[in-house]
């Protein structure tokens, strides 16, 4: 278990030391990623062992420990983050070199540290450990967001830090300390720790503090940091804002719902109904804003805000189908969105185009990229035979189980909206009429290190459709009594 944390940190050190030799440095980055993925895989075997002892690192304050343990959801997140890190490292090498980016060493070091933080979040045994690594992740990603060092990047960095620190210190920490005073425990336990410890109004406020306090889940109105962070290079957007940072956010929400409140408590008291509707509102509003964006990355950013709320909705439904659907969506959306961001980056590298309106005929010039984009879009929209369809199906099932028919409508409407903001990109790329806008130079596919990852992840979207059953089985213990 220790390896999981130590490998990325040692990797970060190696990368820092190798800063004078770019080839070795990049190789170190990829090797670390592969080792980490291997380490996480090896932990699956221990997952079924009962009882699993929490691995305690040290005691921060009397009664508050930094501890780690294994459970299915955390395992899923860890596998996702470490696996996609391998792919993204390769992509990043291609992108950074093609763009002749500066400060590449700092970039790879912060990447490694962010993944280390993600591992810490994934395997956290209690709220304090979760909070510590959550904050570490914010700090580790800050240099990535402000990578370019321009005025715009610094401003975006301020928004990023401002939103995330304000929500985490002002709301989340408040909720955590309050929970501690109520229950004298911060541990994640099956069935939750808050049952019977406080009155309903208190629990309601606590839930609100947690939901809005986990700013990385981008629940409206605390979502503004996400589009602002798009100023970062594409690999950063891809991994962090489609996978690691935002998934850490919704993962935290899911963990709080499952292991701090407990689905039974929420289900019986109806405490999370308001959250369902806030999430639903976020889904719709963010989709509408996405429609209006011309910049491709901004469009994808608002799409992410919308999709994250699917997962929050699943958590808020507090029934088996909802929770499982939401958890599966963590996986499905990750693969779909990372494909889309990879494509956006590849387009930027190959053609220097960032606006959708300029992307006519790109499909003919970069057929592989745009096909991958199509596959990713279909997964996000939720159509078979892509993985996204399964998570959507379970979410709709969960909404029906909870007798919340308006939410079913919301889920269906949002699919329509996502068609409206994603498919036109593909359509324009392949089927646009009108003159070529080639800006005077030939456009080819992006370099191989950029194209290969997006093929892999789009294949993953397809593969997950067939593999969904196994994922379901894997996650089933989450909702068992």
């Amino acid at each position, binding site marked *: 278990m220790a390896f999981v944390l130590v490998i990325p940190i040692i990797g970060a050190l190696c990368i820092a030391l190798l800063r004078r030799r770019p080839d070795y440095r990049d190789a170190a980055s990829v090797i670390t990623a592969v080792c980490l993925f291997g380490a996480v895989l090896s932990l699956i075997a221990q997952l079924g062992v009962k009882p699993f002892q929490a691995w305690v690192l*040290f*005691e*921060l*304050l*009397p009664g508050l420990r930094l501890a780690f343990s294994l459970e299915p959801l955390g395992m899923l997140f860890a596998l996702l983050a470490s696996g996609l890190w391998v792919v993204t490292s390769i992509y990043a090498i291609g992108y950074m070199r093609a763009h002749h980016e500066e400060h590449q060493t700092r970039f790879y070091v912060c990447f490694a540290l962010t993944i280390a933080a993600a591992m810490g979040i994934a395997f956290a045994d209690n709220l*304090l450990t979760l*909070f*510590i690594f959550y*904050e*570490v992740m914010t*700090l580790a990603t800050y240099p990535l967001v*402000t990578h370019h*060092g321009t005025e715009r990047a*610094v401003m975006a*960095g*301020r928004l990023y*830090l*401002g939103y995330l*620190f*304000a929500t985490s*210190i*002002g709301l989340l*920490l*408040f909720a955590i*300390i*309050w929970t*501690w*005073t109520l229950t004298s425990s911060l541990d994640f336990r099956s069935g939750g720790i808050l049952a019977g410890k406080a009155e309903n109004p208190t629990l309601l406020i606590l839930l609100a503090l947690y939901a809005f306090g986990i700013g990385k889940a981008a629940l409206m109105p605390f979502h503004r940091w996400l589009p602002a962070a798009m100023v970062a290079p594409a690999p950063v957007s891809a991994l962090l804002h489609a996978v690691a940072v935002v998934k850490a956010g919704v993962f935290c929400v899911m963990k709080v719902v499952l292991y701090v409140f407990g689905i039974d408590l929420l289900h019986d008291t109806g405490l999370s109904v308001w959250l369902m509707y806030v999430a639903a509102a976020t889904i719709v509003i963010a989709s509408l804003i996405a429609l209006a964006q011309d910049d491709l990355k901004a469009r994808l950013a608002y799409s992410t805000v919308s999709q994250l709320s699917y997962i929050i909705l699943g958590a808020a439904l507090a029934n088996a189908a909802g929770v499982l659907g939401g958890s599966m969506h963590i996986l499905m959306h990750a693969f779909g969105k990372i494909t889309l961001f990879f494509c956006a980056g590849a387009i930027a590298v190959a053609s220097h185009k960032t606006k959708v309106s300029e992307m006519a005929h790109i499909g003919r010039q970069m057929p592989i990229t745009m096909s991958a984009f199509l596959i990713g879009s279909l997964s996000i929209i939720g159509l078979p035979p892509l993985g996204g369809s399964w998570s959507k199906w379970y979410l709709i099932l969960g909404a029906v189980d909870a007798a919340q028919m308006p939410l079913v409508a919301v889920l269906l409407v949002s699919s329509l909206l996502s068609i409206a903001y994603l498919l036109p990109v593909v359509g324009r790329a392949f089927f646009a009429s009108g003159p070529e806008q080639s800006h005077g130079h030939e456009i080819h596919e992006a370099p191989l290190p950029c194209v290969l990852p997006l093929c892999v992840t789009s294949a993953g979207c397809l593969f997950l459709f067939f593999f969904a059953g196994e994922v379901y089985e894997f996650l089933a213990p989450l909702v068992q009594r």
Partner: protein
Amino acid sequence: MIRNHLPALIVIVPLLVALVMPVLGRGDKPWLLATLASWASFAMTIVLQVQVSGLLRNPAATPAIISYPIGNWQVPWGIEFRVDALNAFILLVVAMISAVVTFYARLSVAHAIPPERVRFFYSAWLLFISGLLGVTMSGDVFNVYVLIEISALASYTLVAMGRYQNRKALQGSINYLVLGTIGAGFFLIGVGYLYSVTGTLNMADLSTRLEPLHDNRAVITAFAFLLVGLSVKMALFPLHGWLPDAHGYAPPIVSALLSGVAIKVGAYIMFRLAFTVLGVEFTFAKLPTGPVIWLFATLAILVGSYTAIQQTSLKRLLAYSSVAQIGYIALGFSLANENGLTGALVHIFNHALMKSGLFLVAGIIAYRLGESEIGALAGLGRKMPFTMAALTAGGLGLIGVPLTSGFVSKWYLVSGAIDRGLFPLAFVVLVGSMLAVIYVWKVVEIVYFRPASDSAAKVTEAPWSLVFPAWILVGASLYFGIDASLSSGLAQEAARFLLSQS
């Protein structure tokens, strides 16, 4: 034999060395002697802490009380030095910071003070330290007044010595002198009223005699005067007006000790009076001390942090930040429950480490650049990486990011506020952190993201004898954020001891 006389030696050693100092010549001798004296005191306070604390014994026991009558005149007629769980902890903080900062002082003082004055500087410096150590240990209220004034006079001189860098230090010093003397005067009036009612000056004796006198108007008046006087010394809003100028223009090591230690000692006296001498029942149940202090502490936190955001000088920013941090300590004090008091006491420890470390960093910047305007810091992230890393780490501690010691104090303070059901106060603590993000990040952005200005272009990393002590303090603040069992354990023991006394 030394063991028996430890309490007296802790104060006497620096005092005697201070008296000897002026006859020494130029060169490094004053610094060397000062460092040895301060380290000797530090070693002795560690021994005392071990003797007193129940936590550090095996198996854990209740804390002891060491009573040392000076000159063998027995209490309650003689003056005694009384060390219990509370002061042993504060003594440790004072001596530790003094020792590290004195070690740092060699190059900084040589740079900032003309050579013929250096020995006088160190003389005043040691007087300051011995005064603070004495205040912390004294068990007699008038003796506290005298020692407060000893340390204060020394500090007025030390602040005025900043004039060699910036003549505004003189105004700062005279303002500090006037306000500080008025504050001490109020404290003395309070002592007078207490004496007129009870006839004794010894703290332990006072607490016994004051028990039946809770309704006595003279006692209430005494408490009011004492509180106001100590608020001046502590720089609690709204009596903090002297702090920004004094800490902002004094030589950086003086600011380090003033911000890190001197105002904490004022806070310590407030704890001592409220809990030991007058008792929790009188202070918090009968009088509305709690709500009054909540109000001022909240204002201190909010106004202090807000003003810090607007400063253009690094030292003034740190000074206003100190105003806010004293607000946290006062808030913990006013909560008067175990978590609140633990939070206040551990914050005394943590903030001393962080703020002194930060002022030492400011000193390094002044040493290299000759000024400490924030604008001048542009681009130093690459030129002075270790120093700027210390600045960032200290800043993260002020914010209270987890794994720094600031987080530990905030945790206890918020728990204490929630325990009392005072959710707005808990929120104020967190708002303070958020405001700290703004003023810390302002500096961090300029250091790392702006290109270097012309004056900074030729700068290199500072000598290790300056960087190393700064890193000791900042590193300690990180260490005690990761393993807070020692600092928070001692603070909790002191808090429990205070609450059990009344």
